[in-house]
């Protein structure tokens, strides 16, 4: 009898949010009760498990603050002896340097994504011509006064 093994994948979830902490995201995954391995790190999480489960979990976490949570694949599983610092005698893990450099740019990228989303929202609104609602006008006035 042949048993087909499900494809196992690993993903990094890098959190650059003011609202969500890596521990919050980890708790959310534990609550979801998906059979995945979660490792909390300084920049976010490493999630490993069956492909479908990991993708579902990652989607859910991304929705917590979608423009400030970034995701990428990882080749090695978490805690792999060939990469883990514990078995290599300390020091940064190979591949961490580039991630650290990119993490520095994430607040700016997140802000740019926020702006892009806001612009799309405005575009969608512009498609249908209608009178300006008083509530919208109030918001505009409040924003102007807050400057």
């Amino acid at each position, binding site marked *: 009898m042949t048993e087909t093994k499900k494809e196992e994948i690993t993903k990094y979830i890098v959190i650059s949010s003011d609202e969500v902490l890596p521990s919050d995201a980890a708790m959310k995954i534990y609550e979801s009760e998906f059979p995945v391995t979660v490792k909390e790190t300084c920049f976010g999480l490493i999630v490993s498990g069956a492909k479908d489960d990991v993708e579902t979990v990652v989607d859910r976490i991304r929705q917590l603050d979608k423009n400030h949570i*970034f995701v990428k694949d*990882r*080749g*090695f599983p978490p805690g792999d002896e060939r990469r883990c610092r514990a078995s290599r005698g300390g020091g940064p893990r190979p591949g961490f340097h580039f991630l650290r450099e990119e993490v520095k740019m994430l607040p700016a*990228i997140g802000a*740019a994504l926020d702006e892009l989303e806001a612009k799309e929202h405005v575009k969608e609104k512009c498609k249908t011509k209608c009178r300006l609602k008083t509530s919208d006008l109030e918001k505009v006035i409040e924003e102007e006064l807050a400057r």
Partner: protein
Amino acid sequence: MAKVFIYPLNSLILADLVERFGHKPLTMMSQIREKVTSISLDSPPINITPEDPKLGLKYAAIEVPAGVRGRMALIGPLIEQTEAAILVENPPTNFGCVGCNRTNELTKYLIRSKGVPLLEVKYPESDEEARDFVNKIAEFLESLPKEKPEEEEKTKEGESAEKGDEK
């Protein structure tokens, strides 16, 4: 969904943006995963088998250092799948698997000569540059076809129908 080649190949920002806009990023991580998780291969540095530099010969001559050919054995299959590409100029660091400048030059040359839709942007260093960077990438990715052309789907349907008839 288009398969989008990204350079640097292990970039978090690029891989995330491509996936966010509904396409598939072609990354080094997926290639590495195959190498390190298939049971038939040993631990590094032996996980690059003698066959791999031979595969690399397709892209680089025999005089070229084995490191370039070894890397091309991983990057080459990605280039062949490429349907669109985003190349970032002057990324701040090129560590690890993308740390070889000759391989990077060859990769960029092969992508440019492939004739696929290509976006070349500079790595952002300020908030304004980041805004331009994201806007350009978003515009480029939105211009790519989200679904496979109808012709391909039809041919696939035709093939599956023929198989069904044979059964």
